[in-house]
């Protein structure tokens, strides 16, 4: 069938072509101005789901990053407290060893005992260190202080505080309990009547009971050993957390990259698209202007 072509058809078709061109241009322009390839789910349903999942993961990752930071602060606090406590324990040991020395008289031993009492209360103060209002050596127990300032009784529990640092590792312990760190220094389950090794040492110094003092020197060394182990445990946990932190940062970077690859435009190629579409649009405009004008009217005289 031979197709009649009318001027109305021509102008309608040209207009439709121009409209199609313009709507493509508008689409590309929307992408460039928003910087996003997906502006609504129908732009790409699958990528939308991916973007939503990635963004949720990113948020989770950010929160876990905060959890890691919080955990590192806890462990840092514990580390510095334990360093202070070790230094004090060294002094206690010095005093105890010189107390064992027979050349010391009762007066000197009394002075040593008084210093050890002072050191004991300082140590309890260190053991009651808190972080944001929470005693760091009390486990998860909801108490104001880990050790009673007078009696030295442990008030916490044996459950470590944990931080949710990654989906794979789950909860990582970020605290040591009072027992793990300070052992029998302030209270001794084997000898419930006494107020711990330090109190017993000062008592023996005052009474001059060298056998007992000698035995407690051994206990003191054991407690110092416990504290060193605690310190290395803190170090190990910090290492672990730092490792997780590095991994988490890397993961955050790759999540951001993946999200950007899913959601954002590839700028050079989109600009190229825009250029091509603009050229096509201008060409269409030019051609339309040429086609629409002339008809036989222009040539009949």
């Amino acid at each position, binding site marked *: 069938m031979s*197709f*009649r*072509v*009318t*001027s*109305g*058809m021509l102008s*309608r*078709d040209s207009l*439709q072509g121009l409209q199609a061109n313009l709507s493509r241009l508008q689409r590309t322009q929307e992408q460039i101005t928003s910087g996003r390839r*997906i502006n*609504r*789910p*129908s*732009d*790409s*349903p*699958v990528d*939308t*789901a991916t*973007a*939503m*999942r990635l*963004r*949720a993961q990113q*948020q*989770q990752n*950010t*929160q*876990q990053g*905060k*959890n890691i930071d*919080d955990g590192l602060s806890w462990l840092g606090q514990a580390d510095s407290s334990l360093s202070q406590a070790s230094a004090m324990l060294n002094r206690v040991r010095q005093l105890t060893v010189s107390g064992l020395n027979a050349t010391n008289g009762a007066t000197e031993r009394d002075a040593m005992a008084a210093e050890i009492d002072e050191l004991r209360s300082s140590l309890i103060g260190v053991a009651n260190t808190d972080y*944001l*209002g*929470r005693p760091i050596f009390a*486990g*998860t*127990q*909801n108490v104001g202080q880990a050790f009673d300032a007078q009696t030295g009784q442990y008030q916490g*529990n044996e*459950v470590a*505080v*944990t*931080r*949710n640092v990654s*989906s794979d590792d789950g*909860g990582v312990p970020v605290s040591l309990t009072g027992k793990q760190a300070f052992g029998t220094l302030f209270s001794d389950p084997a000898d419930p009547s006494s107020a711990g090794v330090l109190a017993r040492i000062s008592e023996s110094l005052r009474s001059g009971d060298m056998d007992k003092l000698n035995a407690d020197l051994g206990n003191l060394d054991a407690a110092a050993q416990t504290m060193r182990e605690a310190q290395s445990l803190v170090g190990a946990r910090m290492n672990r957390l730092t490792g997780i932190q590095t991994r988490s940062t890397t993961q955050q970077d790759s999540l951001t990259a993946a999200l950007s690859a899913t*959601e954002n435009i590839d700028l050079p190629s989109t600009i190229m698209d825009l250029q091509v579409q603009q050229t096509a649009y201008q060409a269409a405009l030019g051609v339309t202007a040429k086609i629409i004008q002339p*008809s*036989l*009217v222009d040539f*009949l005289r």
Partner: protein
Amino acid sequence: MSGFSSLNLGVSALSAAQRALDVTGQNLSNANTDGYSRQRVQQSANSGPVVPAMYAKGVPGGDGVTINGIDRVRDGFLELRAQQEHSTSSSLDATQQTYSAVESTFGEPSPTGLSSQLASFWSSWDGLANDPGAGTPPRGLLLENARALTGTVRAQDDQLSQQWLSTRQQVDTVVDQVNGMATQVAKLNAAIRSATLSGGSANELSDQRDALVLQLAEATGATASPGEDGVVDVMLAGGALVRGTSSQQLMSTGPDTFRRGGDPVGIGWAPGGQPAAVGGGKLQGLLGSLNAILPDTVKSLDAVAASLAQIVNTQQAQGLDASGKPGAPLFTGTTAADLQVAMTDPNGVAAATGTPSDPPVPPPLNGGNATAMSGHAADPGGPDALFRDMMVRLGVQAQSVGTRVDTQNAVKNQVDSARASVSGVSMDEEMTNLVAYQHAYSAAAQYISVISSTMDTLINMTR
């Protein structure tokens, strides 16, 4: 043949050329009129008497030209196809509009959408686990996040209801337009019938009517079937919207406001509301939005809200609040419309795990329940997953409707081009005709002048 009949022949040629010029003028003046079909003069050569008169000796010749009528150039099949394609196209357009409005309601994917708010809500539980004591900032923050979340869900539900409402009003408007157009078509039918019966030309009236019929098809998916005397019947599947010179009215049936599980909105015959089959057109698209797309979307959003409330409240009950009592429900409501934060006291948030004691004592600061809660972000059937699925479904449906709209537009344009090819006015053609008819007119005038001069010769000869 007498000299006077030759003059008659010349006159018929003159008037035919004149008439053809008029029609060309009409075509040219309506070249851009919507719905106008080009017209053609149907003329035929007059033959002389076929049965010779008694005793006639001469050889009868032709006797000029007669105008038989002025035709509209139009292809009935193409018109029928146009009605069908336009109807499908406007149905799809209405559907696409609904989808794009729904998509913009949710505004996903974005860093501010519901999915991001859900993620911050779960994260704030992790924040609470770090600092689970009574009266701590994370507790208040968590409740604020929960309120923002429920506010967003309710606002989205509200927007969907609003959209339902405006679509519902659109149905009424379209039904009103359809009723007006149907009445108009019936009136035009009557005018066309009387014009046709009296032997006149009803081309312009028919064009007007056919344009209206096409609009009726776009609105309801109705199709036209031609009847006697140039009249057209407009049929919905099974019923006549216009039959001859009488028309029937439509009305919308069903609820005026959105209710969950409410009756579907439909179209019926006025006044009883007997269901009318709307087989396409804008109304079909609008009804689909009202009865399927919007309720389905609300239902999916309800499922997200219900799952959120159920999961959070269940986990709450397993933990201990700041005073050591088992956690009270954080959310109330089971739909997107009534999802609310029930808790007002931040200390009621159950952060700890442990066994409740009587009387309650402040629980350990283990934050176990809060950590467990934050883990629900990854639940396969949890609100996050449900919402994501919902967005994917919405995206796929909107995308496929978009593709169908593009395809359908191409088909519609192709049919419209074919119609324009048959019925459209071509300037070049009309100009050519103009010149041809002008020459015909000049020639006829010349012919009359020649006959006149021959008669002159004859008359003067006998002087």
